[in-house]
C-alpha cells in the first residue's frame, strides 16, 4: 500500500485534492439533472473518501510535527499564504470529515426532495471548508475556512430545515460568528506582535509559535480564541444554539454538524490554544474554569437531555455532554487526557452522527420525532433496533465500544490533575444511562400499540450500507484503539512539550525578573 501511494506521489497532492476536489464537484452537481444529482454527489464524495483513506498509510506515525506540508504565498504583503499540513491531531478529523460527508450525502437521498442541486453543492462546499479548517497551517487561511463553514450550514438549515428553521439558522450563524470575531481580533494582534518580533507580518502557524508573549497578553488572546472555540464546541453556557440548530436542520445537516463542525472547536483548542498560549492554558484559574464548565456541561446537559420529549433534541443535548468530556480531557493537559479527548471526538463523531442518521430514518418513516409517538418498533424493525442499540451503547460509553475508550482515557487523564472535578464528571456515566436508555426503551421496546408504528419498514439496503460501517467502526475502535492512539501520540507529545517548555521559560523569566527587577517586559503592556 505504501509503495503504491509513493508511486503516485500521494503525499504531494492529497491535501490539496481533499479541499479542492469537493469544490470542483460543484460543477458536475449543478450540471446533472435533478434525478441523478444525488448519485453524482455521492460518488464524487465517495471518491474523495477513498482518496483520503490513503492517509492512513501515507501518514508517518513516528513524526510529531506537521507532515505533507506545502505553502504557496497568497497575499504576500500581509504574510498570508495558502499552506497546508497534517499531523496526528488533524489526521483523524480529516478522515472523519470525508467519511461523514459521504455518509450524510448518502443519507439525504430520500430526505431531500426539493432543490437537490443547490443542496448537494452546499454539502460539497461544507465538506471542503471543514477539511480546510483541519488542514490549514496559516491562521488567515484557517479563519477563512472556519467562517466559510457557516455559510453552507446556514443555508442547509435555513432552506431544508424544519418549521423554525429561520430562527435556528440565524441563531446558529450569529452565535458562532460573534464568537469568532473576537478570535479575528486576536489573530490580528498576534500578527502585529509577530511583525514586531520578526519584522514582517506573518500568519504562518509555525512562525506565530515563535512569538514571545507575556502572560497577560496570553490570557487576553486565550480568552478571545477560547470564546470562539467554546461557542463552536459548545461549552456550557454557550450551548443553546445547538439544540435549535440540530432540531431544525435536515438529517445530513445534523450529521455533519455533530460529527465534524463541533470538532472544529476542540480541534482549535488542541491546535491553537494550547500551543500558542501555553502559559495562559496552564494558568490554574483558566484550567479550573474550563474544567468546571466542562463538568457542568456533562452533568447539566445530561439532565436536560433526559427530560426531552423530542428524540433529536435529546441527542443534541447529549452532544454537549460528550463534548464536555473532550474539554475535560484537553484541560487535563497530559497524554491520557488529550488522547482520550481525541478519541471521544472520533467516537462522538461516529456515534452521534449515527444516532442522527437513525433518527432521520425514523423521521422519514413516521414524520415525527416525539418519543411518545413510538413504541415497540424492535418487533417490526429488528435490524433498525439492533443498529440503534449498538449506537446508543457507544454513545453512553459501554466498554467494548469506542465511547468507552475515549471517556475512560479522558477521565483517567483528568483525574491525575483534578480529583474532585473528575469525580463529579464521572457521574456523567450514570447520567448517560439515565438519558439514553429510557429513550431507547420508549422508542424500540414497550408494547407495539400504535398502528402507524406497525407499518414501519426495516432498514433498506442503502441504509444498511450507511450504518454497517459506522457500527463496525464503533466496535473496532472499542477493541483496538491502539492504531489510532499510536498515530496521535507523537503529535500530542509535541503539544505537551510546548506546554512544558512554557513552564520552564516562565520560571526562568520569573527568576530573571527577581535578579534584575528593573527589566520589565518592555513595550508589552
Amino acid at each position, binding site marked *: 500500500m505504501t509503495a503504491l501511494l509513493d508511486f503516485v506521489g500521494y503525499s504531494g497532492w492529497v491535501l490539496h485534492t481533499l479541499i479542492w476536489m469537493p469544490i470542483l464537484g460543484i460543477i458536475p452537481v449543478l450540471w446533472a439533472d435533478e434525478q441523478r444529482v444525488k448519485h453524482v454527489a455521492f460518488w464524487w464524495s465517495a471518491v474523495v473518501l477513498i482518496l483520503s483513506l490513503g492517509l492512513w498509510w501515507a501518514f508517518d506515525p513516528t513524526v510529531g510535527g506537521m507532515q505533507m506540508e506545502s505553502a504557496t504565498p497568497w497575499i504576500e504583503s500581509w504574510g498570508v499564504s495558502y499552506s497546508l499540513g497534517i499531523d496526528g491531531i488533524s489526521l483523524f478529523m480529516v478522515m472523519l470529515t470525508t467519511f461523514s460527508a459521504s455518509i450524510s450525502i448518502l443519507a439525504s437521498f430520500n430526505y431531500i426532495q426539493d432543490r437537490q442541486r443547490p443542496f448537494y453543492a452546499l454539502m460539497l462546499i461544507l465538506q471542503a471548508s471543514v477539511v480546510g479548517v483541519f488542514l490549514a497551517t496559516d491562521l488567515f487561511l484557517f479563519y477563512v475556512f472556519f467562517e466559510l463553514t457557516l455559510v453552507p450550514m446556514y443555508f442547509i438549515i435555513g432552506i431544508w430545515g424544519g418549521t423554525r428553521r429561520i430562527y435556528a439558522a440565524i441563531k446558529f450563524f450569529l452565535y458562532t460568528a460573534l464568537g469568532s470575531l473576537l478570535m479575528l481580533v486576536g489573530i490580528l494582534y498576534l500578527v502585529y506582535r509577530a511583525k514586531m518580533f520578526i519584522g514582517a507580518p506573518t500568519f504562518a502557524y509555525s512562525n506565530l509559535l515563535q512569538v514571545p508573549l507575556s502572560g497577560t497578553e496570553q490570557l487576553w488572546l486565550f480568552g478571545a480564541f477560547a470564546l470562539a472555540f467554546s461557542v463552536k464546541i459548545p461549552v456550557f453556557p454557550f450551548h443553546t444554539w445547538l439544540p435549535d440548530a440540530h432540531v431544525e436542520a435536515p438529517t445530513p445537516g445534523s450529521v455533519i454538524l455533530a460529527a465534524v463542525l463541533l470538532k472544529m472547536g476542540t480541534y482549535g483548542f488542541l491546535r491553537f490554544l494550547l500551543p500558542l498560549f501555553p502559559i495562559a492554558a496552564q494558568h490554574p484559574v483558566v484550567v479550573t474554569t474550563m474544567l468546571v464548565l466542562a463538568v457542568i456541561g456533562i452533568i447539566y446537559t445530561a439532565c436536560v437531555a*433526559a427530560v426531552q420529549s423530542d428524540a433529536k433534541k435529546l441527542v443534541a443535548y447529549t452532544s454537549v455532554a460528550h463534548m464536555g468530556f473532550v474539554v475535560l480531557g484537553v484541560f487535563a493537559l497530559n*497524554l491520557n487526557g488529550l488522547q482520550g479527548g481525541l478519541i471521544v471526538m472520533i467516537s462522538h463523531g461516529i456515534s452521534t452522527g449515527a444516532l442522527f442518521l437513525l433518527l432521520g430514518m425514523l423521521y422519514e418513516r413516521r414524520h415525527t420525532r416525539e418519543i411518545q409517538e413510538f413504541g415497540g418498533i424492535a418487533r417490526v424493525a429488528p435490524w433498525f433496533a439492533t443498529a440503534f442499540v449498538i449506537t446508543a451503547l457507544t454513545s453512553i460509553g459501554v466498554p467494548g465500544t469506542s465511547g468507552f475508550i475515549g471517556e475512560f482515557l479522558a477521565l*483517567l487523564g483528568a483525574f491525575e490533575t483534578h480529583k474532585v472535578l473528575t469525580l463529579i464528571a464521572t457521574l456523567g456515566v450514570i447520567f448517560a444511562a439515565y438519558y439514553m436508555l429510557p429513550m431507547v426503551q420508549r422508542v424500540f*421496546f414497550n*408494547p407495539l400499540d400504535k398502528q402507524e408504528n406497525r407499518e414501519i419498514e426495516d432498514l433498506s439496503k442503502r441504509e444498511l450500507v450507511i450504518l454497517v460501517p459506522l457500527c463496525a467502526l464503533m466496535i473496532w475502535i472499542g*477493541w*483496538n*484503539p491502539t492504531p489510532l*492512539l*499510536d498515530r496521535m501520540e507523537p503529535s500530542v507529545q509535541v503539544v505537551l512539550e510546548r506546554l512544558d517548555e512554557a513552564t520552564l521559560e516562565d520560571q526562568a523569566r520569573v527568576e530573571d525578573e527577581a535578579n534584575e527587577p528593573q527589566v520589565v517586559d518592555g513595550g508589552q503592556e
Partner: protein
Amino acid sequence: MYNALGVGIQETVETATQFQPFFPGLIILLPLIGFLINGALALRHAQASASAVRLGGELDLGEADHLPATHTLPSYVAPGVMLVAFLIASVNFARMLSVELHDPHVIEYWTWIATGAFTVEAAIQLDQLSILMTMIVTGVGFLIHLFSVGYMRDDAGYPRYFSYLNLFIFFMLVLVMGASYPLMFVGWEGVGLCSYLLIGFWFSDREKSDAGKKAFIVNRIGDFGFLIAMFLLFGMFGTLDFVPLFSQAADLEYGNGLVTAVTLFLFLGAAGKSAQIPLYVWLPDAMAGPTPVSALIHAATMVTAGVYLVARSSVLYALSPIASATVAGVGVLTALFAATIALKQNDIKKVLAYSTVSQLGYMFVGVGVGAYAAGIFHLMTHAFFKALLFLGAGAVIHSMHHSLHRTNNHKDPQDMRNMGGLRAFMPITWGTMWVATFAISGIWPFAGFFSKDEIIWQTAAFGGAAKAPYPMLYQVYWVIALVAAILTAFYMTRMMVMTFHGASRTGVEEVKHLRESPPVMWIPLIALALFSVVAGWINVPEALRETFMGLGPLTGEWLHDWLEPITEQAHHIQELNLGEVAEQAPFGGGEVTWALVSTTLALVTVLASFQFLRRQNVKVPAEDTELSGLSKVLYNKWYVDEIYDRLIVQPLIKSSRFCWKVIDAKVIDGVVNGVGWVARALGFVVSMFQTGTVNMYAFVLTIGALIILGVSVF
C-alpha cells in the same frame, strides 16, 4: 502483537512454571462465536416475524417437527459451544492441578490501549481463582443453556435468547479471566448489558422493559465507583494490570487512606453488581427475565462478580480495616434485610431473588472478614444450589404456565398461592429442590453447610483476633449472620411447602395439564443437585475433619489451599497486623461446637416450620386477606423502592426539568435573545431620527455644518 483474537497464540511470560495452558483463548472465543451465529439467526428470524407482525399477526412457528432452521440450530449451537468451552476449561484446570503454579499465568493477545502514559494489554490471566470461576461459569452455564433448550422452546425469540445468553457468557469470561482492571471492567459492564437485554427480553411488556432499564442504571451507579477506583489505582501504581499492581500494593502501609478510598469505591461497584444495600433494588425486579436467565445471571454468575472483585483485590482489602469492616457490615445487613423481605413474598421467583441478595450478603461477610477463600467457596456452592432452585422454579413455572395456558386461565403462574401439592406431578423437581433447600439452609452434609458455616465461624474468629480493629462490631455481625441463617431456613421451607405440599390450589381443570418437565430440563436439575450435595466436601475445615462432620479422610481444606497463591499476600498482611484469629466464639465454644449448633438450628427450623406451615391454609390470591402491620411492610419490601423514588428519582426529574425549562430556556436563551432584543431596540430608538422629513434632514445638516464651522473658526 496484532494477531487475531488469538487461538492458542501465546507469549509465555514465566518460563519457570511448567503449566501449559490448553487453548485458553478458545474458552472466551467460543461463546463469542456462538453469539455471532445465534445473533445472525436471531436477526433472520426477527425479520420473518416482523413481516408477520406488520400484517397484524404473530409469526406461526409451524409444527413442532418442522420448525425453521433459525429455531432449531440454536439448540445445538448454544449449549454446544458451552460444552466445548467447559471441556477446554476442565483440561486447563486439570493441567493446573497437576503442576505447582504459584505466579499467575498471563497470556497477552494484543495491545488494547496504549497512550504512552498508560498501557493495557488485551490479556487473560490464568490462575487458581480465574480457572475456578471459569469452571463455574462454563459448567453451570452449560447446564442452564441445556435447561433453556427445553424452557424456551416455544418462545418466538428463541435464537435471540441464545445469542444474548452466549454473549453474556463471553463477557462473564472476560470478567473473570481478564488480566487487568480495565479488562475486567469490560466484562463487568458487558454482563450488565446482557443482563439488561435479558431482563427486558420480553421487551413488549412495559414492566419488564422497565426492569431491564432499572438494572442497567443502578448497575451504572456501581460502575461509577469501579471507574473512580481504577483512576485512583492508576494514580497510585501507574498500572492497572493485576500482577504488577498487587505486588506493589503489598508494600503499602497498613490502613493507608488511599487504599481505603480505592477499596470503598471498588465496593460501591461490587454492591451495584452484587445487589447489596443500598443498590440491591434492581435484582428483585430483574426476575422479569426468563427464569433460566435468573438462574444463570442473577444467581450463579453475574451477581457474584462483586465477590470475585473483592477476592481478586484481597491484597487491597486486607490493607484497609475500614473497608473490610464496611464490606462485612453491608454484607451482613443485606443478608438479614433481604431475608426479612423474603419471608412474606408470594412470587416464587421473588423469594429466590431476595434469597440470592441475602446469600450474596454472606459472601461479602466472608470476604469482608478476610476469609476470601470462604467467600469464593460460598460463591461456588451457592452457584450450584441457587441455580438449581431457580431452574426448579423455572420447571414449576413452565408447567404452571403450560397448564394455565391450555385452559385459558389468566392466573399468575409464578404466584405460589396458585400452586400447592405439585409434588405429585413433578417428583424430580420436588426432590432436587429439597436438596437445594437443605443446602441453602446450611444443613450437614449438604454443600451450603460447609460454606456458610465457615463464613459465620470466620466472622467470630476474626472479631476475636488479637488486634482486631473493631471486635465488638464483628461480634454483632456474627449474631446477625446466625439470625439470618435461621430466617433462610424458614423462608425456604415456606416456599417449598407453598409450592409442593398441601392441597392443590391450581384449579380442577388445570391440574390435569400439570406435567413433569422433559429430560432436557430435569437432567440439569439432577446434575446440580448432585453438586449441591458434594460440592461442600472440597473444603472441610481442619477442626471439623476430626469429627463425624469431616466425612473421614475423604476431604480437607482443598479449596483454601488451592486459592492460597491468590490470598497469601492478604493473609500475610492480616497476620502481621491483626495477629492470630480467635479459637473461641464470643460466647465460648469452638468451631465444632458452633457448627453443630448452626446445623441443628437450621434443621430444627426446617422441620418445625415444615410442620407448622403444612397445616396452614393458604388462600388463592383472589381470596387472600389484606396484610397489616409488619407483614405489610415486609410484603412491600420495606417500601425502599418508594423511598428511592421519592428521594432520588423524582427530585432528579424535577431538577432536570427546571434546568431545561428555566435555566436553558429562560436564563441562557433569555440572555442570548436579550442581546438580540437590545440590539434591535437600540436600532429602533436611533432610527427614530429618520423622520422621513427632508427639511428635518437639511436642518440637522445645516446645524452640523455650522457646528463644524464654529469649532474650526474658534
